[in-house]
């Protein structure tokens, strides 16, 4: 057994599987390859060249798509001379007219606020890193928050919900899909791609090293 100091230095070389607690010596796999926990098969490290730039770029794209979708026509229906159109905000807020304000706030959060918050947090956490600068204060908290918000970002589920609603309406009225609908579909694709590039371990060690080298 070596001294405590050695152990402390050694700790940085170790990685514990977040899912099963198995302890390994962290070794960076080749670009595009993945280090998988042999015990529970959780992906531990999956580095991709230029991952930080791509993740930031996708976050900017998500932000632009979401904000512009707010101001575009979403859906409209027409039947027997009557017509009605709705925006994303109308759809998100529709419960509030029926004494369900809490649910309305929840829906707005799940499909608009949380995705926007995640995009902003990711940009804030990684933008300086992208330029090889020292991360801003609070960058680590921002990145951790964005990861904690991940399951509560439900834009992709909303898009599927819109699809189901359209099938229900198609029988009784003619439906027109607006620009905001297609922006949301694009948003889902971008989110899926972003998740594919996001290797948490690489980003955490980049944040740690970025603070050390430039600080």
């Amino acid at each position, binding site marked *: 057994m*070596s001294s405590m100091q050695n152990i402390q230095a*050694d*700790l940085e070389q*170790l*990685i*514990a599987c*977040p*899912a*099963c*607690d*198995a*302890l*390994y*010596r*962290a070794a960076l*796999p080749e670009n595009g390859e993945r280090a998988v926990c*042999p*015990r*529970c*098969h959780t992906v*531990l490290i999956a580095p991709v060249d230029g991952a930080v730039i791509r993740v930031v770029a996708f976050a900017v794209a998500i932000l632009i798509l979401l904000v512009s979708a707010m101001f575009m026509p979403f*859906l409209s*229906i027409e*039947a*027997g001379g*009557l017509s*009605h159109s*709705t925006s994303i905000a*109308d*759809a998100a*807020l*529709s*419960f509030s*007219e*029926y004494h*369900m304000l*809490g*649910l309305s706030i*929840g*829906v707005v959060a*799940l499909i608009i606020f949380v995705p926007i918050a995640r995009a902003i947090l990711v940009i804030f956490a990684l933008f300086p890193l992208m330029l090889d600068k020292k991360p801003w204060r609070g960058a*680590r*908290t921002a*990145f*951790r928050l964005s*990861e904690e918000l991940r*399951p509560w970002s*439900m834009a992709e*589920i*909303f898009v*599927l919900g*819109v699809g*189901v*609603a359209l099938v*229900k*309406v198609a029988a009784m009225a003619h439906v027109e899909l607006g620009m905001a609908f297609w922006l949301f579909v694009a948003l889902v694709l971008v989110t899926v791609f972003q998740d594919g590039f996001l290797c*948490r*371990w690489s980003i*955490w060690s980049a944040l*740690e090293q970025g603070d050390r080298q430039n600080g």
Partner: protein
Amino acid sequence: MDEHSAVSEHVVTAKEAGLVSCTHCARVWPIGTAACARCGARLVSRDEKSMSRVWAWWFVGLLCYIPANVFPMLQTTFLARTSGDTIVGGAIVLMMHGAIPVGLVILLASVVIPIAKFIAVAYLALSVQFRLPSDQLRRMKLYELVEFIGRWSMIDVFVVAVLTALVQLSVVVSIQPGSAAVAFALAVVFTMLAARSFDSRMIWDSLETPAEAEPDDSRKDFLS
């Protein structure tokens, strides 16, 4: 990383090595450290209170899920006649109108997945509490499935939101949300919280060697 190590082989955990792991960023610290110095997350080697949190969320989730199925999810007013549709009723109406795949999606997301999720979370919690000695990998896969799929149950709430906003054709036809919408959304949120309170590391604790005095070769590999 030891790619060739087999599952049967004893794996040293952070806990056994006298360390505490961060479930957010995978960094390890000496046991007793309160917060991860890298990402700021609170560190707990094994969250003993997590099981009571799992059961608490599980129970309120179930309490919300029952009214969600009894009361109407949405109400359709067609020429001044109002009729309510429960989740199951709405899916059956869809299928009778020929939209069988869509009806099945709704049944799957709103009935099959929530019920399967209640059963799966209860099974996982009980298996850990009674230290079930086998099937760690299968239980792990089950937990990942529950975490991945649980959010998709929210789809029916979004369907109601879109229909309510869209179908407002004056006096001819309009759709309003039913009281089940709130209960159902809460049931989905509470079961998501139940699954997230679960500490999956505990599934693997039954593999621990009971005899602590036994010399551990693999530990030397890390700390020598």
